[in-house]
């Protein structure tokens, strides 16, 4: 009987020692932080903004859990470890998706640039065909200067593509196309006025 009590006390003492001295999962914490940082470095702030925000929130929640446990007498890091492991796997999944998203953004920007260039070239060609010399409508002359302004914006859009700012390049290219189409329409109207007068 006495030996049974001794064993029981020893077992309780062992359980006490192990649970109160459980160590914080520092390695898993570092891995989780590195995983989230890797998403940021892979341009997650541009191409996976919402997911990155959630990862940061989840990481913080896991770190808070570790912190809360570390203040307790009987420390249990099981849940914190699960949370940290989830952050790592979620971060890896998000990071894996980013290259495809970049490629898609690049394709859309390239298409927008091509459309803008086509509209710009069409407006330029129309202006080349427009009547020159005495009798020219003054609107046509003004539009040549307008196209010169668009040319510099095309250069800016190309610079954005080179800097891999695909969303910025797409926005600018879309605006250029709209303006070039408008100029072409106005040139055609001015040409029709001259033809009408003749």
């Amino acid at each position: 009987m006495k030996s049974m009590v001794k064993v029981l006390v020893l077992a309780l003492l062992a359980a006490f020692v192990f649970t109160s001295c459980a160590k914080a999962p520092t390695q898993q914490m570092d891995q989780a932080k590195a995983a989230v940082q890797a998403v940021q470095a892979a341009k997650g702030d541009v191409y996976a903004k919402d997911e990155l925000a959630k990862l940061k929130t989840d990481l913080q929640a896991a770190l808070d859990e570790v912190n809360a446990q570390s203040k307790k007498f009987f420390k249990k890091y099981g849940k914190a470890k699960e949370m940290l492991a989830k952050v790592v796997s979620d971060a890896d999944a998000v990071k894996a998706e980013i290259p495809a998203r970049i490629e898609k953004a690049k394709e859309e920007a390239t298409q927008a640039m091509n459309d803008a260039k086509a509209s710009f070239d069409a407006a330029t060609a129309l202006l080349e065909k427009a009547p020159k010399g005495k009798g020219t409508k003054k609107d046509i002359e003004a539009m040549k200067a307008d196209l010169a302004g668009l040319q510099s914006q095309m250069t800016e859009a190309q610079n954005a593509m080179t800097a891999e700012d695909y969303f910025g390049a797409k926005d600018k290219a879309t605006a250029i196309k709209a303006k070039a189409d408008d100029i072409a329409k106005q040139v055609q109207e001015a040409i029709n006025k001259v033809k009408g007068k003749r």
Partner: protein
Amino acid sequence: MKLFQTALFLLAVCFVACRVPPVPPEVQKAEAQQKDLWRAGAAVFCSQEYDDYTRALTAARHRFEGENLKLGVFRDYDRVRQDFQAVLKSGDELLARVQGIKAQKTEALGEAVRNLRAKMATLDDITLSLTERGNARKRLAQADIYLDETESLMRQAKFEQASAKLSSAGECVRDAEEAVFAFISRYLDRRQVDIWRRWTEDTIAESRTKGIVALVVSKLERRLNVYRNGRLYRSYEIGLGFNGLSNKMHSGDNATPEGRYVIVKKIASSQYYKALMINYPNEEDLRRFAEEKRRGLIPSSVGIGGDIEIHGGGEDTLTRGCVSLDNEKMDELFNLVSVGTPVAIVGTNEVENYVIRAIRKN
């Protein structure tokens, strides 16, 4: 029997101990609310309040997890419900605040965009009427693109980037305005305007004293005024040269000359409908041309030019220095004038001309 009663008793204890109260629905709502908040950009627009919200939510979750560790019969979710209700309340307030901030930023930026577009519309009209084909038009086209980008970024709630684009657009518009002022710098010179006014007054006086028709062309306003016996009789819109606002110096400069002239020939059928030739170059033109040549400002091979007419073909066309009118107006004018009719061509008679007034209005 005793065994059966003990088993029954143990079963009853198990049943009571394992009964779990329902999880408060507020727990699920808070999960959804947190997602709504970071989607709305709470971490960007109200970072401190969002941090406080997140901390309160974490604390509420801890209490919830703490209760979940207890046997079902000992769980009490009342305090958990209260915690999550407080979090939901603060979350709703935070969401309203974020949406309010976004609406404010959108309105402020929107108004700035509207004001800039109004200014651009004025400059667009002015540059077209002045036939400014250089830097002003170019900068206006660039500003237009920057404003389109601004509006696109505003729709994506990227307010900082939108603000930067708006700033670039504003810079372009300022440059366009400066280019317009530079283009008409002569027209802002009080002494020059006084000279033009004197020519106009002298021409009108000649019409009055001699009882004849006289013409005054005002280049900036694009008007040709007909005076009969010193009184304004008709006023027509006109077109000018490619470089019409400049004073003609030599052949090929596409400028419309300034000075006092007379009609020397009436041409009933010309390349540009009817035409009235004037005596450019007059003595003052010849004197100035010789002076500019002497100073080396005009190449030796370049002549002074000539064949300056008032003709038909349309007031919206560009000439090589002549003054053009719509054909029907040219018909009227042709019948009003004769060889010898005085013609004054001036820049403007107004110091506070329409360009200045329009720009100042915006």
